[in-house]
């Protein structure tokens, strides 16, 4: 069965040179199809890059933020060390916590530097003490930990990054969705444009269709001559647009800071993703031209 289907695909690709010649070359629709397919494939590469990058970023942000938490201890100077030690004791005995450590003065200074400058007198400011918590794979019970901390270190506030993680993950997820939606819309527009071009070509070749029918051509034979031509043109145009789009993605300027824009593009095996664009474009062109040809041939009956 598979061999049978494969032979049909091969027949379609190889084509019938005689049938091809029966339909005269139509310069305008040929150029329109090539151009539309190339432009749409170019845009599809960017939409794909956006979607893949957003998906990757969403996963990374979720993973990074989910694996860490911060404990902030605000207490009078005299009680700071005692509450810090108590909090560390609670953390060491809490299941699901891989490690916990107090940030050094230098690390805290580095965190405050963007707001207060490089010479922050930490000793003279009532700055809370920060403890970095690294989660084990099984995770920990944040609510249970908070209850224990209330008793052992009342000045401790647990920040498990949920309020940061959720909107970031939601934003990245929405970007991913919008990227794929854009791809679907791009291919829908491509299908519409190819349908218009195919209809124009069929209308311009009404006499050819009439002559071919007169000499005994079946509608499937006539349709195939148009469908194959439009499908191959679309694949060619989409391949060109895909290559140009991929080059443009490679040439995107990279930002020094790590962020979304510096991450826009494909990575590793992800570079195979753009290869599906000409294939999908070919399928869209095949279906669009088939529908246009069937409709026109039915009307010409």
């Amino acid at each position, binding site marked *: 069965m598979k061999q049978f289907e494969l032979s049909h695909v091969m027949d379609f690709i190889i084509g019938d040179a005689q049938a091809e010649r029966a339909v005269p070359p139509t310069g305008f629709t040929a150029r329109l199809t090539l151009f539309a397919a190339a432009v749409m494939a170019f845009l599809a590469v960017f939409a794909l890059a956006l979607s893949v990058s957003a998906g990757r970023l969403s996963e990374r942000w979720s993973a990074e933020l989910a694996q860490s938490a911060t404990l902030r201890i605000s207490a009078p100077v005299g009680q700071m060390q005692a509450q810090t030690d108590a909090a560390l004791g609670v953390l060491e005995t809490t299941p699901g916590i891989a490690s916990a450590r107090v940030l050094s003065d230098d690390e805290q200074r580095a965190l405050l530097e963007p707001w207060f400058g490089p010479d922050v007198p930490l000793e003279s400011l009532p700055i809370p003490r920060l403890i970095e918590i690294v989660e084990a794979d099984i995770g920990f019970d944040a609510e249970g930990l908070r209850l224990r901390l209330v008793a052992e270190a009342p000045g401790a506030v647990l920040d498990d990054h949920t309020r940061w993680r959720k909107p970031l993950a939601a934003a990245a997820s929405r970007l991913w969705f919008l990227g794929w939606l854009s791809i679907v819309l791009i291919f829908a527009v491509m299908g519409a444009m190819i349908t218009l071009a195919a209809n124009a070509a069929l209308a311009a070749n009404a006499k050819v269709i009439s002559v071919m029918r007169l000499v005994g051509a*079946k*509608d499937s034979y006539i349709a195939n001559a148009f469908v194959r031509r439009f499908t191959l043109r679309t694949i060619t145009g989409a391949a060109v647009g895909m290559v140009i789009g991929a080059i443009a993605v490679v040439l995107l300027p990279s930002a020094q800071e790590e962020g979304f824009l510096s991450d826009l593009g494909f990575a590793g095996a992800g570079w195979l993703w753009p290869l599906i664009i000409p294939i999908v474009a070919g399928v869209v062109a095949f279906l669009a031209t088939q529908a246009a040809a069937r409709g026109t*041939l039915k009307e010409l009956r």
Partner: protein
Amino acid sequence: MIELEQVSYSYGEGELLSDISISLTPGSFHFLTGPSGAGKTTFLKLCYGELLPTAGHVRLFDRDVRSLARDDIAEMRRRIGVVHQDCQFLDHLPIADNIALPLTVAGHSVHDDQSNLTELMSWVGLRARAYALPPELSGGERQRAALARAVIMSPDVILADEPTGNLDWEMSQRLLQLLVELNKMGKTVVIATHDLALIRAAKGQVQARVLRIANRHLTVGADL
């Protein structure tokens, strides 16, 4: 072979053909006459399934044309060669490719039938013009090419619509002789024409029957 039984055909409100019954038997030769606009072309179109009757039955090779799918009609067309008055060629293809078009659409390899094609082109006197495009041919050459295309599949029936309409007398005679030859090979031939001189010229060459369409009705005349 082709049978019309109480066939009527209307274009919109007006009835063009009414209550026509005739059977085109194998090997018969018919001239179809009548004034311009009487319905000769419509009659021929009914005979090759291009038009469906608005009443009555048309049977092509014992099958009612109404029961035929589009692909079935395409199959039937391969058994019916049609010569149009305006020839109907694909102008971007050389005349040899136009003549071979019925072979192409039927899935035959033109290469395999190359000798037949060459022979056929010689028969209609167009061998030297094989690579000319249709617009480069004279009226007579185009009519002969149309005839060659109509017979390349060795059809059972040949329907010719005013095949000599644009030809001088000498060329008309030559085309008629080609059709008579085909009839002698056993083909059914129907020639729609208003050229009575052509019909007279056929007398003695072939046993033909004259059909006349006038006032929506078909009358069968005497044999020539």
